[in-house]
């Protein structure tokens, strides 16, 4: 089995034929690594994350995740691949407002044809929300909502956890709780790709990749450009 889990080869994304968000990025991420992606606003960090999350398609170049060439997948295959391999944590803790914490966590399981509620309960307990299973998002604090998102991202045992500013909307205390959870997940062997403005959080990872103007400008471990 190759050590590299994600390989981006000359990856470019150009919006509307003129705005270059990513410019021929070459990057490889190893299995089990925590890679922090930093850079100024509009540098292309989130675009890069969307490509790796299979939420968006590149204009040119290729993405390999494991043995799968993402470029070759159609929309349905991309959805299935994302569901089975990638856990997503957003900056705004997107949750379905009328579903309970438990139901929100079970949603990706339902899409994956898994109805085992006990797994969802166990995962919510793991993020410290065993007592808020049946609360709807409006009844949860920001930190709790983000923890539900983390539980949801983990529910299908993804190989990669992708987090876009996961502590961006949280106070310091809740931010710390969420960060500790991510560290735990990393220590359990998951590959983590985390976008952050916060250099302190970035340093929690094994490696920092800085993106400026759509290009990888620096990596404290590996630079392929």
């Amino acid at each position, binding site marked *: 089995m190759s050590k590299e889990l994600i390989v981006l080869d000359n990856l470019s994304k150009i919006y509307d034929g003129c705005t270059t968000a990513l410019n021929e990025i070459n990057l490889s991420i190893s299995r089990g690594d925590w890679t922090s992606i930093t850079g100024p606003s509009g540098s292309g960090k989130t675009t890069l994350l969307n490509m790796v999350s299979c939420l968006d398609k590149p204009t040119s170049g290729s993405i390999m995740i494991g043995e799968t060439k993402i470029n070759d997948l159609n*929309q349905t295959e991309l959805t299935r691949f994302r569901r089975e391999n990638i856990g997503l944590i957003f900056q705004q803790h997107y949750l379905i407002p009328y*579903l309970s914490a438990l139901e929100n966590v079970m949603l990706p399981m339902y899409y994956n044809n898994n109805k085992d509620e006990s797994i969802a309960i166990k995962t919510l307990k793991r993020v410290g929300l065993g007592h808020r299973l049946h609360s709807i998002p409006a009844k949860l604090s920001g930190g709790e909502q983000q923890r539900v998102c983390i539980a949801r991202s983990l529910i299908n045992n993804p190989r990669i956890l992708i987090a876009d500013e996961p502590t961006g909307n949280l106070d310091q205390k809740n931010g710390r709780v969420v960060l500790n959870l991510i560290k735990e997940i990393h220590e359990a062997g998951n590959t983590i790709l985390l976008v952050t403005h916060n250099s302190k959080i970035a340093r929690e990872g094994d490696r920092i990749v800085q993106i400026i103007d759509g290009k990888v400008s620096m990596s404290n471990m590996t630079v392929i450009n």
Partner: protein
Amino acid sequence: MFYQILKKSLFKRKGRLIIAVIAIVMGVTIPAAMFTVSLDVNNKIGAEFRKFGANLLIVPKSDIIPVGIGDISLTSVTNQQYINETDIYKIKTINWSKNILGYAPFLYQVITAKSNGQEQQVVLTGTWFEKNTTLEDGTNFLTGVRRINSWWWSVEGNWIGDLEFFNFSSTTCMIGINVAKKMNLSLGDIFSVTYQDEETLSLEISGIITTGGTEDNHIFVPLEVAQYLTEQTNAIHTIQVSALCSGCPIEDIASEIESEINYIEAKTILQMTNTEMSILHTIEMMMTIVTLIALLATLLGVSTTLTTSILERKTEIGLMMSIGAENRKIASLFLTESLLIGVMGGFIGFIIGILGAQFVSITVFNSFVSPQLIVLPIILVIASIVSLFASIIPINRALKIEPVLVLRGD
């Protein structure tokens, strides 16, 4: 999980749900009313046909005589014509004679009935009850009102026959239920009838008839008795004919009878119900047009409501897609939602439609309609189809949502 999402999302958007259901209700109420009225009236007419053993009525052609002063025509009078009793057998000489199951002549005359000091003007009807006639080829043919209408006429007591010997001064009769009630008569009672203060007959009640029709107001005696009392030998007013219509159109039989007896008109019962049928058809046509317009408006209304609902749920849909919902899962959620809206709207529309049908029926036909349960599945199917059609465009929009744009806030 699917039903949890469905239930909670519908509950969350009660307002939109109610608007969509109201749109469906408005669209299907008219077809529900239309189907109910139409089926009920058809059933009633059908029931009348079934009850009415005879399906041809033979009447003499009437002469219309214009009446006026000088050159000015003021009105017209009808010269009373009769059918000659001796021509009745000709009905059985037509090419379709095997299809003629039976017939009965009728002679009507208003007479005065007297009982217990009470006098009443009543229609006396002479007819054949069960008469053994001889056809042209010498064969016997048992016919009469009992042969063609026995299961339509409900008789308390006994039928009277034509084969008995009649004593014209005192004979048996059958009376309609309304006559019995009005004159306080019962089985076995004897009363007298007088025609133009001249001839008087004593009649003993053998049977009381209930048909739900005009027969309930008549006194029935054998044809010979009526002819004797009214001094109209061989005269009859009408003949009811029961013809078997499988394999030949009733109109052909009617026209053949008209050829055989050239001074009569043979009318099918269908012709006689034409007025009711044409009113019904006009209503049906108008309602069909209104229904189509209403359903189109409903389609647009529901489609707009669902589109608005989907736009409101853009982030939710994008999130579902981002965490692994395939298009078919998203589509099935909205299709089920639409189906539920259709079923709910259809059911309420059916109930309101029945009330509307009562209003239409009382206004136009002066009678209540019975709820037709068969209309319910029809309306539910129509409502569901409209609702599902209305959801096609909104669902397409939902499936075109790009999660990356939605989650970015675009």
